[in-house]
């Protein structure tokens, strides 16, 4: 936290300054790319935004960052705006998984190459974009299920009993995919583990605390494992468990993201593990995607960032602390 970090001018047009051209090699240098991303109010997004600005500048890409307060309607108009500016490419973080197909069609008709990041829409429409780089939410959910089973095994518990889920905001594409991946894998690998209840934690610690507290009251000792889609929500689950007098080390506590608070909890032994999704990785992949595009490299439709399972054993090697500036 640095209060006097930037002047108001830099604040207003941070992206323009950040993209001041640095001598860089490759066909991408000097190309104009518009990145339509998410607002800094979400920490993950803030790290991603900082990172992509930095990496693009290194590569000499003229990157313009436009953020969005998780409002698909606003993002659709931002796509219109971006097309009007005739950039060499558009990099799009679709706030809502599928809301932007019509807007993507406009980009296609305008003959502007479209790259996607972070949120992967329905693959049936992948003719609309050149490449997706980023997380695979269904895989993340699936890995979380796997990790939960590993945790029970590691603790020497049978694969039976109840599991509760704390999900993201209801209706979001990520939430839908992660939930799907988790439930399907769990049903496949451990049919005797029953999902007792699921409540949204809205990517927020406080909401997750209340939601988990309710489920702990209802199911109490029946619960052998908890899946929270994000580490900051697992933090809420841990608080609720402590209040309910439950020992988190006795349960399979699985989060997601390998966020700073998750690293802390894993090291403290309160949380068994998490599944990595790093904003640094995602931003790096996205910039690579831009570089590949302009250098005529072969582009596969989907490139996923790695989602290794993380436990106390490998947390230090896998999870890099999020950079601050």
């Amino acid at each position, binding site marked *: 936290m640095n209060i006097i970090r930037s002047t108001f001018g830099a604040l207003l047009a941070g992206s323009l300054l950040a993209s001041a051209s640095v001598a860089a090699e490759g066909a991408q240098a000097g190309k104009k790319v518009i990145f339509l991303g998410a607002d*800094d109010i979400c920490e993950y997004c803030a790290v991603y935004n900082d990172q992509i600005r930095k990496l693009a500048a290194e590569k000499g890409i003229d990157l313009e960052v436009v953020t969005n307060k998780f409002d698909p309607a606003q993002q659709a108009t931002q796509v219109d705006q971006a097309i009007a500016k005739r950039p060499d490419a558009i990099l799009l973080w679709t706030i809502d998984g599928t809301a932007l197909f019509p807007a993507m069609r406009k980009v296609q008709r305008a003959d502007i190459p479209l790259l996607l990041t972070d949120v992967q829409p329905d693959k049936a429409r992948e003719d609309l974009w050149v490449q997706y780089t980023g997380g695979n939410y269904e895989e993340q959910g699936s890995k979380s299920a796997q990790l939960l089973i590993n945790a029970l095994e590691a603790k020497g518990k049978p694969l039976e009993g109840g599991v509760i889920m704390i999900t993201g905001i209801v209706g979001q594409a990520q939430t839908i995919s992660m939930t799907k991946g988790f439930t399907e894998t769990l049903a496949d690998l451990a049919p005797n583990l029953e999902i007792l209840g699921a409540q949204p934690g809205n990517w927020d610690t406080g909401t997750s605390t209340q939601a988990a507290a309710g489920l702990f009251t209802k199911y109490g000792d029946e619960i052998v494992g908890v899946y929270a889609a994000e580490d900051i929500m697992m933090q809420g689950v841990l608080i609720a468990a402590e*209040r309910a007098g439950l020992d988190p080390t006795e349960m399979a506590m699985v989060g997601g993201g390998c966020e700073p608070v998750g690293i802390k909890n894993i090291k403290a032994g309160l949380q068994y593990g998490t599944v990595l999704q790093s904003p640094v990785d995602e931003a790096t992949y996205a910039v690579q995607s831009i570089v590949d595009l302009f250098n005529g490299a072969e582009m596969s439709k989907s490139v996923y960032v790695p989602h290794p399972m993380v436990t106390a054993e490998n947390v230090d090697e896998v999870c890099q602390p999020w950079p601050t500036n």
Partner: protein
Amino acid sequence: MSAATLSRTSGFGGLFAPARVQATVIQIATVVMFLAACAFIENFASASNISSILYAASTVGIAAVGLASVTISGNLFALSLGSTAAFASIVYIAASGWGVLPALAASVALGLVFGLLQGLVVGWLRCNAIISTIAAGSLIAGLATWVSDGRTVLAEGGPSWLGSGTLIPGVPWQAVLFLLIVIVGEVLMQRTRAGWELRLRGTNPDAAELAGLRVTRMVVLSYVLAGAGAAIAGALIAAQSGTGNLRVGADLDFSAIAAMLVGGVAIGGGRGRIIDVASGTLFLAVLTNILLVNNFAYEVQLMVKGLAVLVAVTAGALLARKKR
């Protein structure tokens, strides 16, 4: 007791006077609902579940008490509570190295300053109350984003007594703080000159002005209290989780408004007491907890909450009319 001698709330009949009937009904409903849940829902009466209800009620309730001073003084409501709480959560965690009380004091100071500025804009410069607080909410959120750079701040060390300590099992310190604030608020509002002036201002702003009451000061005061309430709520949320970020207090504005209105505070000003805010908050917290404990789907929870607001207000209006 001056409040009792000069208002219709005295005596048993006063509880059901038109102006008080909604508040009384909600108080009874809260108790009945609570007892029924204790009897019929397994584990509901457990210490951990009671404390979970109290944690949820304390944060929203403290913000709602502050907000109520704005409403009772006749300025409808403030929409800057959420961002004030978010900023306060960040300040609390950043300052938590100094200890719990200094960190709490730092957050409250922040809330006081933001409240004071809004109070001056609304009270002294006589600007539109709603838009001023929407503008303030946006400005505060902007400052908080700038200062925090969007990052979650984590507390050093383990949980503090304010975050997870209890007086007795089931009664967290946060609930004690809430109770204290309600009592102090109630006494200030009913028994002090400033409280009387604030309520009279809400009843009739023009008459209060012509009666020479200190209306500007009262309006400023109400926003200062609202800012402080929101900041304490933010600090408490931060203390619970050991984290502070911009998402804290995302639903605080409308939760606090709903709690206050359900409790029987009139949106038009002048009517309602601080204890009503507490009972409205507890009513919604118990209701939410019952739904959560029974694992009702999120959509059902929302719809029941919406219905509760509608029914409480409808019943209040109908009963008040019948009494007339």
